[in-house]
């Protein structure tokens, strides 16, 4: 049954994409209304994803009964080349099953939300075509049974991301944001390819089962370290870690549900999934794991500081995503693959919720301005305030998500974040990670520093998220008294998914309660994922354990940090402020994200563009073009000039040529 259901998972969203694309093409035209309100995408778009979720549940049920051994289903041969026989194979195991559930579950909620959000857009059908395509590729990514198949999905989601970021492409800024995303991703992809090449030359395997069986034998070698580093560079590109994070804030140019699905819940988590999937590789190279954890920590802190001073609600959430992804990498870098994946799941719940809620808010403010024909930025926090009274359900849901991301119990984020930090401390002493050294610094020291950074970031997270809630929903309203009257809760089709996600953000922690709190099923996720990542985790961390006392201390510390952060957030944003148009533009370092964007533009983009234009465009392109084309014509002219002399109309010449030819034939016969 798995063999038949698994391809269905891919075919459903692909089919949806095709149908929606056909509708999009047929309703397109220069002056037409486009596909606004078109019934087909409304039902097909979310429908196929909901159906896929149903299939996922069926598969999940099967796995629960039949055991979680990996099942590989081949869909046909791809590269039967010398020594390599690669198939289009899908692998269903505990890890991929979990990812599929998250993708189709959260994905279907976001699709339903999009029906409301994108109703008025002439590109309605095109939107759903792209979104379904994205889900198809994301599923291929997590279900791939080998690195190349995963890579196809990897590239595919990059493409879908590009298409969706630049969805409103008529505005050049949006198109450029899409292009930036694609190009930065490409850098990571190049490293990914190198990793695959190295893996092939060293193990002669590219499928997960085969390669990961061969990798432990290479533990500690430079090759496996290099493979792990190259894989991580790929992850850094896809999951927006330093220094390849630049594209994610720009990606907010796309529609908000896109930001929710792609840039919060799924695509950006592909990097984390890859590290978990390639756990044996990282376990065989502890130095690389330390690098992953360090980069994750630095990114988390960096992004959290920038989020403190962002005025665009989506930008706050974008930097928050970068920061939380950093947390996930801290986890998988410390050998706590389960904790990382746990955080991935809870983050998907509350970040998607936050984005969708923000979308509802933006939607409402936009309509309010539209109503009064004023011109204001509906995404600027300075134009909001006091919305809790007008949009209570959204406010409550977003409040839940804020508390979850801040890490307050009993919300989901608390459990996952605590699991990560506890894992870092556990690995900090007496493990092979702690014994390894990165750039001369012992692993134990690095991990302790990572813990400190993690705690600081948790504090900042609580602060900036509370700030967002305060500025948007509480205090005095800055949108305008007339506009306030027009503000209202979003339609049900948008609010319902938000509420569902709110429940998940509330109760998601049950997935993996720590053994410390015996109030329910503890360690469910630990047990579920053990067959996939357990071995690698043990290799890195050994059987180190924290004492119960230590665990309670860490728990208390985490709660304290969260509470303090929320308090600071409330206290520092209690005074009323001016709206966006009356405020002076914020040019502080944090608001400009340390000016890195401009720096990159001057130092990298500028010179590369110059080189492309002058050298490749001018010299190479022009030179080769004139060379070949004019040279070619010259050659032909020469040949013709010579050839024409043969046809002088004189019988004698022809006779002579005839004789010469006959002679040549004769000689050929004699010689041959």
């Amino acid at each position: 049954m798995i063999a038949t259901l698994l391809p269905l998972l891919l075919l459903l969203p692909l089919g949806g994409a095709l149908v929606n694309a056909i509708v999009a093409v047929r309703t397109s035209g220069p002056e037409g209304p486009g596909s606004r309100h078109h019934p087909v995408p409304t039902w097909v778009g979310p429908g196929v994803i909901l159906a896929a979720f149903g299939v996922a549940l069926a598969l999940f049920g099967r796995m629960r009964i039949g055991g979680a051994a990996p099942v590989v289903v081949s869909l046909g041969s791809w590269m039967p080349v010398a020594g390599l026989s690669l198939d289009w194979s899908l692998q269903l195991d505990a890890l991929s099953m979990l990812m599929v559930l998250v993708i189709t579950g959260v994905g279907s909620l976001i699709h339903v939300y999009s029906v409301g959000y994108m109703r008025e857009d002439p590109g309605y059908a095109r939107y759903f075509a792209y979104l379904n395509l994205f889900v198809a590729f994301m599923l291929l990514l997590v279900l791939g049974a080998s690195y190349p198949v995963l890579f196809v999905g990897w590239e595919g989601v990059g493409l879908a991301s590009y298409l969706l970021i630049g969805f409103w492409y008529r505005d050049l800024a949006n198109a450029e944001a899409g292009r930036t995303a694609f190009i930065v991703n490409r850098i990571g992809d190049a490293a990914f390819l190198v990793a695959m090449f190295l893996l092939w030359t060293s193990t002669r395997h590219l499928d997960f089962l085969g390669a990961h069986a061969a990798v432990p034998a290479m533990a500690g070698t430079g090759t496996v370290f290099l493979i792990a580093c190259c894989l991580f560079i790929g992850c850094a590109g896809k999951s927006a870690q330093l220094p390849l994070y630049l594209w994610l804030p720009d990606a907010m140019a796309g529609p908000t549900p896109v930001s929710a699905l792609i840039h919060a819940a799924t695509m950006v988590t592909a990097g984390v999934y890859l590290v978990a999937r390639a756990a044996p590789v990282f376990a065989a190279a502890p130095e690389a794991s330390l690098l992953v954890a360090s980069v994750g920590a630095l990114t988390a802190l960096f992004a959290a500081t920038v989020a403190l001073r962002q005025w665009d609600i989506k930008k706050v959430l974008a930097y928050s995503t970068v920061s939380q992804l950093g947390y996930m990498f801290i986890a998988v870098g410390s050998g706590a693959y389960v904790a990382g994946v746990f955080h991935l799941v809870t983050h998907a719940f509350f970040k998607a919720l936050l984005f969708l809620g923000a979308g509802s808010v933006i939607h409402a403010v936009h309509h309010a301005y539209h109503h009064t024909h004023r011109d204001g930025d509906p995404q600027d926090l300075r134009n909001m305030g006091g919305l809790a009274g007008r949009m209570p359900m959204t406010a409550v849901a977003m409040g839940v998500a804020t508390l979850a991301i801040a890490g307050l119990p009993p919300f989901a984020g608390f459990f996952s974040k605590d699991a990560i930090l506890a894992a870092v401390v556990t690995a900090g002493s007496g493990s092979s990670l702690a014994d390894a050294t990165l750039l001369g610094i012992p692993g134990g020291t690095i991990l302790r520093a990572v813990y400190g950074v993690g705690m600081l970031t948790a504090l900042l997270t609580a602060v900036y998220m509370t700030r967002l809630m305060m500025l948007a929903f509480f205090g005095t309203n800055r949108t305008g008294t007339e506009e306030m009257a027009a503000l209202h809760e979003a339609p049900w089709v948008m609010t319902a998914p938000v509420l569902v996600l709110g429940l998940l953000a509330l109760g998601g922690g049950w997935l993996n309660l720590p053994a410390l709190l015996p109030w329910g099923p503890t360690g469910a996720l630990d047990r579920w994922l053990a067959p996939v990542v357990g071995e690698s985790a043990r290799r890195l961390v050994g059987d180190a354990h924290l004492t119960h006392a230590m665990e309670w201390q860490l728990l208390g510390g985490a709660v304290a940090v969260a509470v303090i952060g929320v308090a600071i957030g409330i206290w520092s944003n209690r005074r009323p402020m001016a709206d966006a148009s009356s405020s002076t533009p914020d040019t502080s370092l944090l608001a400009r994200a340390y000016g890195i964007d401009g720096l990159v533009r001057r130092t990298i983009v500028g010179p590369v563009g110059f080189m492309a234009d002058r050298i490749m465009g001018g010299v190479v392109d022009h030179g080769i073009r004139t060379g070949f084309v004019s040279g070619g014509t010259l050659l032909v002219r020469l040949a013709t000039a010579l050839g024409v002399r043969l046809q002088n109309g004189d019988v004698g010449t022809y006779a002579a040529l005839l004789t010469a030819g006959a002679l040549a034939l004769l000689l050929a016969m004699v010689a041959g």
Partner: protein
Amino acid sequence: MITESLVVSAILFVIGVLGVLTRRNALILFMCAELMLNAVNLSFVAFARLHNVTGEVFVVMVMTIAAAEAAVGLAIIIALFRHLGSVDLSSLRSLRG
């Protein structure tokens, strides 16, 4: 005698080729072609002596065809002469490409 005959045949043939390539007068050109045919006939007869009588039969065929060719060729030359006023082949250049 056979080899000597073949040598003679070769020499006569080449003399004919030389004539064809160097003369401009159409009639002489044509007669050089006849010389080439005769040289070939000598070869055939030599080989007929060596093998079987088919060589002689072929000589008869060649002669017949030579006669037909002569008839038609000369008719063409006459028509050419009427048209051009001379039989100089180098003055025929209308097919110049």
